[in-house]
């Protein structure tokens, strides 16, 4: 009950306080004279946003970076020890390798699959139904997807009734197939997890790429067909180049998503058997082991990994890309 009252206070209070601030700024400006007004006004209006950014974004980032150079309970500095550990310990190297595998496989396969589905459904009557079906997994959380696929990947030895969907389907199609414990086999578990991620995000890629596809004027393609170009040629020489910026948008969004991957790994294998990823490791170091130095180092590494992608994104927006 108390919380509800506080919620109401916040909902009413925040616009009031902001409004009051703007009024005060304007009132002060009227008194100060026209020279100050033009240049100063945008900064004063933006000030609340800057303060919030500084408190909730800049300060935590700097603080985390600082913590990564301290020891586990942040009592004494250890210079680069945390980073050295992450880049030299064999288990940590496996974690980094896994993120790289996720990055490459997840992004490529999702984009290619999304593109394929977008192009194939483009000229079919039941396009909407197929798209809705493929987009459906985006509506659930990664945790829910993890739980669903954990059931799908269940293992029973050969000869016993197969309760896992994947093993059951493969067993019925290929009579000599031996059921696999997908999540617990070191050669398969990373792939199995990545498939879950792809399953979730292919709908997103498909929708955006489909929009980009429909943006290509049909007269171009008609002209190419009249000139005798085959479908494959049209795809690679006309459609793909024109969709370049859309593909880059989809790819960067997917890269940003995959670098943070956590829920799927945590729910399905908890990082056991060489499936650990940076975010899961960071969680364990922070909350299970209370090693703040190492957890912060992981966070900084993730931040550094994402900066190139961000720079790319911002540059394109600056150039007025789509």
């Amino acid at each position, binding site marked *: 009950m108390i919380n509800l009252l506080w919620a109401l206070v916040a909902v009413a209070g925040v616009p009031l306080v902001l409004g009051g601030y703007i009024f005060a700024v304007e009132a002060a400006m009227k008194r100060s004279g026209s020279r100050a007004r033009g240049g100063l006004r945008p900064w004063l209006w933006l000030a609340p946003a800057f303060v919030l950014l500084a408190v909730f974004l800049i300060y935590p980032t700097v603080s985390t970076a600082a913590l990564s150079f301290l020891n586990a309970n942040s009592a004494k500095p250890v210079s680069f020890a945390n980073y050295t550990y992450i880049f030299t310990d064999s288990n940590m190297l496996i974690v980094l390798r896994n993120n790289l595998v996720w990055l490459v496989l997840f992004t490529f396969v999702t984009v290619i699959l999304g593109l394929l589905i977008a192009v194939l459904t483009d000229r079919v009557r039941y396009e909407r139904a197929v798209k809705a079906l493929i987009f459906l997994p985006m509506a659930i959380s990664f945790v829910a997807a993890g739980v669903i696929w954990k059931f799908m990947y269940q293992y029973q*030895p050969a000869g016993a009734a197969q309760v896992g969907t994947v093993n059951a389907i493969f067993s019925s199609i290929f009579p000599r197939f031996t059921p696999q414990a997908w999540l617990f086999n070191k050669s398969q578990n990373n792939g199995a997890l990545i498939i879950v991620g792809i399953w979730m995000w292919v709908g997103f890629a498909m929708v955006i790429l489909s929009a980009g596809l429909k943006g290509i004027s049909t007269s171009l393609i008609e002209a190419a067909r009249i000139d005798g170009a085959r479908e494959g040629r049209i795809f690679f020489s006309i459609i793909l180049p024109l969709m370049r910026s859309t593909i880059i948008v989809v790819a960067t969004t997917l890269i940003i998503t995959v670098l943070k991957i956590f829920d799927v790994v945590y729910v399905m294998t908890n990082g056991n058997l060489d499936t650990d990823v940076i975010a899961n490791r960071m969680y364990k170091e922070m909350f299970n082991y209370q090693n703040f130095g190492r957890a912060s180092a992981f966070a900084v590494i993730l931040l550094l990994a994402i900066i190139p992608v961000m720079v790319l994104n911002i540059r394109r927006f600056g150039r007025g890309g789509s």
Partner: protein
Amino acid sequence: MRRLVLILFVLLSTGALLFATGSGESTQAGGKVGGSVSVLGVWGGQELDIFNSMVAPFQDRTGVKVEFEGTRDLDAVLTTRVAAGNPPDLAALPGPGKMAEFARQGKMVDLSGVLDMAAMKKAYAQGWLDLGSVDGKLVGIFTKASLKGLIWYNPKNLKAAGVQIPTTWDQLMSTSQAIAAKGTTPWAVGVESGAASGWTGTDWLENIFLRMYGPAKYKDWYDGKLAWTSPEVKTVWQTWGKIVADPKMVYGGSQYELSTNFGTAFTPVFQTPPAAYFHFQATFIQSFIQKQYPDLKPVDDFNFFGFPAINQQYAKAVEIAGDLFGMFKKTPQSTAFITYVTTAEAQDFWVKPANGISPNRAVPLSDYPDPLSKNAAQILTSADIAVFDASDMMPSKMNAAFWSAIMSYLANPDQLDSILSDLDKVRADAYSGS
């Protein structure tokens, strides 16, 4: 404009006043305590049902609402909440290891000021009170216990196969090999358990270690004084590997072991025809067996024998485990609840479905529903050498690494040396105490 400001002022000040009076847990009229208590634990599924039925009479009697939150990742959730200054009122912990960490940080309430210590000394053997104490202060009180290192079997199947109950490890190995030679895998093992996957394997190793090297070395092991790469520890793993790393000895091979949840791993033993004959697990698995196979009768259709002796000197040693309650916030509600869970009445709820053994002396043997659980209770209370589950006594980082090591070993038994040296690296970190 002015009216608007006036209305808003009234709204804001009312909100502030209501907040200032605090969210108190007021006592209701009629002698009932009222209010609520928050409890954090690992229980889910069937064990949660039992917990809820245990809690029902308490709620009716005192009017206190028990808000239980269950998670297999208890370690992370509890550590975070305690560190954030937002602990639950009470936590149901699977062992004294984590509890000791919190107690040394000063986060736990000294139960001697909460419980009636005279009544506790009457109800509990001193051993239980000692296990729940850190540096002389009682911080955890046991609510249910289990006997570990039991080997469950189907008597009818064993008789049909012409197998005798082994009493030594060598007999167990030869019996298993004889069964394997006939074409059936003798063992059913499953170590999956969400964020705690691998703990079943730790029970195996602890029992082998205890019977090989005795309680003194066992204590050194969980105190971190014995290296994982030492020949003693390596021998224990290799002994275990003779069973679990051999695909002819375990149902479904390593894939089944890694992917099957501990609560359903026994099913091959009760299939017709049997797909396995032995299942290693603690006493609480009886309630799981009975839930899944309600028609099976204890003693006739399923029974257990104690872990076979390896070194005759330690033949009578037993490994016990238990769940204990610790208090983080002392309120009238949490005091009432923790007093309730120590009573024979509350602990009976775990005893009746054969999910636990009560450490409370007031629970009579007749409360145990069948000769099987009575037998287990008797073994536990009359054991000569009783040690606690070693992994639950280790610091949580060591414990988690131990669990992971079990998974890694089952997947690649030939990498034992590197697994053990990784464990030693964690040991150097975990016992230094941050």
